[in-house]
């Protein structure tokens, strides 16, 4: 009983324990914030990767996969596959409206199928705001009165030419690709002296031979249909989506007639009437259109690994069926069939982030042990200060264990209060981490989060109750650990010497 009473009084009447509480609070909050941001970063990374790439990817770069429509149809017939989308990827060069050039990753997609796999339509920036916030009205967000055709044009990657009224293949750029789009502190974008979806860009790509050599440079003007904002900086800054058929044509991967071998254009022959005419080729077949990737989304509940195995089986049967075709399908043992996590870049990045999280947590864990040392130092001083009181308690019949428990309980109380406060502080900071970061940037000029390094335009965070519980329990444990040595010292004090202590 006396331990509870004295703990309460020591906590409320002394400055030193409040310092210990503050130390535990800061350490707990620090670890929790770091862990939440790192975990949020990893989760966002994985979620974005999955959104952008689907669950499983079939990939055959350069030459591409022919008969892909048939393959996708086969795959979608399987109950494990929810949707499939063909894409064509190549590096390219953008000629921007302001005269600047920019290298980008060009992705040819069919809007509808791509949306079914990746949720692409939701990433379109220029579309009417579904639920405008008061702040959107305050700053007169351009999207409040946006004509719906921007959204449709973005979804279809097709724009109606205002002069001719005919549809034109269009591009959709990552919103950070254009220098005139400025990301505002609140997370929205403001455009500068031109509005990108009203502009045209020049896209240059390199059609490659089967051996990967550039055949020529293909350049074409495209209207910009819309812009995407995935929150994944790498994509938002460096991706340009083009309508698949247009890109296939530029890369010479579209469906084309195949002529008999040895035919040369421009050869002049005499026709049946004895007049000179250009020789006409004999059509002996068709080159099928090709894509470099097929993205697949698994049915609900199907794991990416299970889906990959199933896709492998289906692909084997598809490849076997086309082994004699001309051109044949890429061999099943050589084509890349990977879950999105297994893609080389992603795998390395995720592993690096996981390792970095572990490293940072270990370091911060060690730093947090200073709380234990601080509690130890404060309690050591307190035991010295309270030596005579300890002697009195022993003279009144308090056992050694009882005296030790007084200080351990005190450490426990400091740990519990400090950890709870730390949890609250961490929660408030994590909850408002982006406004706080923006404020720091405005007021102090300190921007710690660079989207070009950390992939995301806002700081992701995620507080998991289990992790919070671990951190809070750690704070309590460290405090108790810090109290143990002074408590042992108090328990071992000779009561006579303690009573004579000056």
């Amino acid at each position, binding site marked *: *009983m*006396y*331990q*509870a*009473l*004295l703990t309460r*009084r*020591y906590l409320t*009447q002394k400055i030193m324990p409040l310092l210990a509480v503050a130390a535990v609070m800061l350490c707990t909050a620090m670890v929790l914030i770091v862990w939440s941001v790192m975990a949020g970063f990893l989760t966002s990374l994985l979620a974005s990767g999955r959104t952008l790439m689907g669950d499983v990817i079939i990939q055959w770069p350069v030459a591409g996969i022919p008969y892909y429509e048939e393959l996708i149809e086969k795959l979608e017939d399987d109950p494990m596959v929810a949707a499939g989308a063909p894409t064509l990827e190549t590096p390219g060069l953008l000629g921007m409206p302001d005269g600047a050039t920019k290298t980008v990753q060009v992705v040819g997609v069919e809007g509808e199928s791509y949306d079914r796999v990746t949720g692409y339509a939701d990433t379109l920036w220029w579309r009417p705001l579904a639920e405008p916030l008061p702040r959107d009205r305050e700053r007169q967000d351009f999207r409040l009165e946006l004509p719906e055709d921007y959204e449709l044009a973005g979804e279809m990657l097709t724009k109606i030419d205002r002069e001719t009224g005919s549809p034109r293949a269009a591009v959709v750029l990552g919103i950070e690709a254009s220098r005139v789009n400025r990301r505002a502190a609140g997370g929205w974008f403001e455009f500068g002296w031109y509005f990108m979806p009203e502009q045209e860009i020049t896209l240059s790509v390199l059609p490659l031979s089967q051996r990967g050599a550039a055949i020529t440079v293909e350049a074409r003007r495209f209207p910009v249909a819309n812009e995407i904002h995935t929150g994944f900086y790498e994509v938002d800054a460096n991706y340009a989506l083009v309508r698949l058929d247009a890109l296939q044509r530029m890369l010479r991967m579209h469906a084309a007639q195949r002529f008999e071998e040895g035919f040369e254009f421009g050869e002049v022959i005499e026709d049946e009437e004895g007049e000179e005419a250009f020789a006409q080729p004999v059509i002996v077949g068709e080159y099928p259109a090709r894509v470099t990737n097929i993205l697949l989304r698994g049915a609900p509940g199907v794991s990416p690994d299970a889906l990959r195995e199933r896709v492998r089986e289906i692909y084997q049967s598809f490849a076997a069926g086309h082994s004699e075709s001309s051109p044949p399908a890429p061999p099943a043992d050589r084509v890349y069939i990977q879950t999105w996590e297994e893609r080389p870049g992603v795998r390395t990045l995720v592993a690096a982030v996981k390792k970095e999280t572990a490293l940072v947590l270990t370091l911060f864990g060690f730093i947090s042990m200073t709380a234990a040392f601080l509690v130890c130092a404060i309690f050591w001083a307190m035991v010295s200060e309270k030596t*005579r*009181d300890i*002697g*009195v*308690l*022993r*003279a*009144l*019949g*308090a*056992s*050694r264990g*009882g005296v030790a428990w007084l200080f351990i309980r005190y450490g426990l109380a400091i740990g519990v209060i400090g950890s709870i406060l730390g949890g609250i502080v961490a929660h408030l900071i994590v909850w408002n981490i982006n406004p706080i970061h923006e404020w720091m940037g405005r007021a102090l000029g300190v921007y710690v989060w660079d989207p070009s390094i950390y992939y995301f335009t806002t700081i992701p965070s995620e507080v998991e109750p289990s992790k919070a519980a671990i951190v809070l329990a750690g704070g309590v444990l460290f405090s108790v650990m810090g109290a143990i040595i002074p408590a042992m010292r108090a328990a071992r004090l*000779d*009561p*006579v010497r303690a*009573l004579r202590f000056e």
Partner: protein
Amino acid sequence: MTTLLAARSVSKTYRLGRVDVPVLRGVSVTVAPGEWVAILGASGSGKSTLLHLLGGLDRPDRPERPAKANGRGERHEALDDGQILFEGRSLQHMSQAELDRYRNVSVGFVFQFYHLLPELNVVENAALGAMIRHGRLGYMRRATECRDRARSLLELFGLGQRLRHRPAELSGGERQRVAIARALMNEPAVLLADEPTGNLDRATGAAIIDVIASFRETSKQTIVMVTHDIAVAERADRVLELRDGRVVEAK
């Protein structure tokens, strides 16, 4: 005469660096139930050490050679040499828990410098022994009873208006009265007072002795009081004088 508390030829030596300093050299004391014994002595004579030994706060030295029985009924007494006995039982043979309980229930300490806990108010200081005795749950069950006992003792000692005050808000005499109430909280068999007036002026000291004497008159409380003040010692039933670690005179 029955003996409640006794010291049988106890010695105590402290070690200061490499030097052994004998403080008590074969002191024997007996205290009967209801008796008030004063131990008189100059500073450094070992009187506080004797009180600590009687109160189980410290242990006497082990006798160098156990005395042999001489076959004439003196064996028992010789074997008790170097022992502190309470109701015939040696404190040295008690376990640590038994010794803690002895200090908590059987004896009550009053110190020269009061030694009240500054964070607790008057009632809480007085009830501290009961909190230690009953543990958390036990005390919660008996909280009213314990507080009433503390209050009645404090009122008896004239502190009825000071119950919620902190020690820092009290005079020296008031603090010592709180310390006496604390010592008597668990109705100890023996009150051990170590220079209870040593830190007070003469009038206040006399008032404190009056309080103790008055309480003793009604409760027949056994008291062992250490003092260097002859006037205080003369209030006791019996006075022992300690000089150089030995009882040299008994009045």
